């Protein structure tokens, strides 16, 4: 397309020139109206102007031939330049791992033209919905369309467990050994679980098919069909949009140019994990920008490697302490100290002013003048929900929280539901919100699947989330956990038994949200450090419960180093009652017990 434009730009003056010549000639002959096309008039000119006509024909002909030669030369030159550029780009060292993912890519040859259930996006919410649909609608045929090359996988281990694995081939297998000895893959199901897309129509008992590497670019809500990036159209009966989001970047980095972008990782997918793992082994210093969940988890994970690989790990963020937007200040400060003890150099109250690449190193200049020199940057500054389809589908986008606006039943319009990170939904208890956590993706995906099969249930079962920052600090949380709300924290002193490691060993579970169902999960304890400081100091926040209040009602709860009590927390939020004495409520958690 660019070629055409440049060619046209070059031809335009020529065209204009030749047309002016023609027009002038026409005027001279004086027997044609100016609205007519000059060239045509040439051939129908009066007999008297014959010789002049021939001259004009010659002139125009010459101009055209000249133009053609010029065009040909330019296009050839452009082509050559283009080829040179392509060669140059491909000769650059690859940033990402180029290995093919092991046999988890689902091959397909034909795409079904219609599917009863279409799920756009192949992440956690989508998979949970697929499972829900299959459980409730016998023989259901479900088609998942994802632009990633991988079938559905879980995201938390990418910034936690996978980093603690001792297996050198972990970037290939993507398996991790849990502390209870059980190993599992990050993929929800092995490839044999899914059926091929072309077999979906004829499958007697239905099934789940995954179309990888395909992006949905257009949605026709009236016609109940979508269009892929290769122009294939698929019609559906019910559709789920679970497109998740794309990591945000700092403007200063985007504007800093290609050299800086090459040394920056926006972390979200499997390929980001692979490339970051590779990069982190070959550099001397890495800086993580962002002090939230992802940033802090990655900082701790990399911090643990810092001694092994002689790697300096820096984390910087504008808040006063890690998780500054989630934890009350006293706890955020305490957590920051713990993160530091994981080998991370924490720079708080840091606003990035500019980033430049000098002598193959990155120089980050902060607004207060401090300068940080590093080899690589990981930007963990939030997620931009993917609402690309909103325009073509005519769906509402929420201006406060971002994402598609849906009702309490997760429905956007008839036959269209949205779940996961991209859904801004109405929570009957806590109000309109958008949640970016793994368990929410599972819960909302499952709910959407239920509603797609006729359940009509609102979002009611409150999802939870968790985070571990090293072996000593782990917490589970539920509801609205915003540090700007007034909080009441009830703490006891921690013993050696109150660590994330101990919690999973005891319950024999893995992923924290599953520990409530006695299923596998994981805890990221790699070092065998002794129990946390059981000092006499009064301000040791070993374990406890923190209540977040809005108008005197508990809207959020953090269980700090206290595990397997989520059902109680969920109940308190569900009740939505005003409690006069939160210490009494805290008693329900038995924080002193194991």
């Amino acid at each position: 397309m660019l070629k055409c434009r440049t060619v046209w730009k070059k031809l335009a003056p020529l065209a204009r020139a030749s047309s002016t010549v023609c027009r002038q000639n026409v005027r001279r002959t004086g027997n044609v109206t100016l609205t007519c096309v000059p060239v045509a008039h040439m051939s129908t000119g009066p007999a008297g102007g014959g010789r002049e006509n021939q001259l004009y024909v010659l002139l125009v002909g010459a101009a055209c031939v000249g133009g053609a030669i010029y065009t040909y030369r330019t296009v050839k030159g452009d082509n050559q330049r283009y080829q040179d550029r392509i060669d140059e780009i491909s000769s650059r060292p690859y940033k990402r791992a180029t290995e093919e993912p092991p046999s988890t890519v689902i091959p397909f040859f034909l795409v079904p033209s219609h599917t009863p259930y279409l799920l756009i996006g192949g992440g956690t919410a989508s998979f949970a919905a697929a499972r829900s649909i299959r459980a409730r609608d016998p023989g259901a045929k479900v088609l998942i369309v994802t632009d990633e090359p991988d079938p559905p996988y879980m995201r938390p281990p990418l910034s936690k467990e996978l980093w603690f694995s001792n297996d050198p081939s972990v970037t290939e297998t993507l398996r991790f050994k849990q502390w209870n000895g059980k190993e599992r893959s990050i993929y929800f199901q092995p490839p044999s679980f899914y059926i091929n897309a072309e077999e979906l129509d004829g499958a007697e008992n239905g099934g789940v098919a995954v179309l990888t590497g395909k992006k949905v670019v257009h949605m026709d809500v009236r016609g109940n069909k979508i269009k892929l990036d290769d122009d294939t159209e698929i019609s559906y009966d019910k559709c789920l949009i679970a497109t998740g989001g794309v990591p945000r970047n700092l403007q200063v980095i985007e504007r800093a140019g290609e050299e800086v972008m090459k040394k920056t990782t926006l972390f979200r997918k499997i390929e980001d994990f692979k490339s970051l793992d590779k990069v982190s082994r070959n550099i001397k210093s890495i800086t993580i920008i962002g002090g939230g969940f992802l940033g802090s988890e990655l900082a701790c994970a990399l911090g643990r490697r810092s001694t092994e690989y002689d790697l300096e790990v820096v984390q910087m963020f504008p808040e006063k302490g890690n998780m500054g937007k989630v934890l009350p200040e006293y706890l955020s400060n305490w957590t920051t100290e713990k993160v530091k003890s994981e080998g991370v150099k924490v720079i708080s109250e840091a606003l990035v002013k500019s980033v430049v690449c000098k002598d193959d190193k990155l120089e980050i200049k902060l607004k207060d003048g401090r300068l940080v020199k590093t080899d690589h940057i990981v930007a963990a500054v939030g997620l931009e929900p993917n609402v690309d389809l909103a325009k073509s589908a005519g769906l509402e986008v929420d201006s406060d929280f971002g994402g598609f606006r849906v009702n309490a039943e997760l429905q956007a319009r008839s036959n269209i539901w949205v779940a996961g990170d991209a859904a801004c939904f109405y929570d009957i208890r806590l109000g309109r919100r958008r949640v970016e956590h793994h368990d929410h993706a599972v819960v909302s995906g499952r709910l959407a699947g239920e509603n797609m099969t006729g359940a009509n249930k609102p979002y009611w079962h409150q999802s939870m989330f968790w985070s571990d920052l090293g072996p000593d600090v782990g917490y589970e949380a539920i509801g609205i956990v915003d540090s700007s709300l007034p909080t009441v924290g009830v703490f006891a002193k921690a013993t050696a038994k109150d660590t994330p490691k101990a919690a999973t060993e005891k319950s024999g579970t893995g992923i924290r949200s599953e520990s409530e169902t006695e299923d596998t999960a994981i805890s990221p304890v790699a070092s065998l450090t002794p129990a946390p400081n059981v000092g006499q100091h009064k301000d040791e926040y070993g374990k406890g419960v923190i209540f977040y209040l809005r108008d005197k009602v508990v809207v959020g709860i953090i269980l700090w180093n206290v595990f397997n009590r989520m059902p109680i927390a969920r109940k308190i939020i569900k009740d939505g009652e005003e409690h006069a004495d939160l210490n009494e409520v805290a008693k329900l958690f038995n924080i002193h017990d194991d």
Partner: protein
Amino acid sequence: MSYCRQEGKDRIIFVTKEDHEAPSNAELVADDPNDPYEEQGLILPNGDINWNCPCLGGMASGPCGSQFKEAFSCFHYSKEEVKGSECIDNFRNMQECMQRYPELYPQEEDKESSQAEASSSSVSAAPTEGSALPPETDSTPATSTSESAVSSDSTSLIDNQTAS
């Protein structure tokens, strides 16, 4: 003794074990076991099986989902002396299907026999427990443990049939 501090809008209370010994006087709202909004356990209030229960993992949704549903439904509604004795064909179909997907339904013999007793007793107890104890399950999809637990239960049933 408990110790309390205020930091701006945040209140911090430190409590000893003795402080929390007395039972709580916090009032919780009574739960309605038939609340349609609530997450249901394995058995729904009307006695049907909740195929979407996270405790089943991927059993009802995988490639052998329909065979599993038939076998388990037959067992659940069975009124025979030996529960599920008429369901042997269903279970055989299910096992045949599962053997075609060893990756999804690992066939570990030793684990099965030890888990068989545990899970068969829990499965038969499930109908009574189900409504009273709604499991707070937000689990991500199946892991091999739950799948092998339920599949081992079914195979143990078949073994029982052949034995008797």
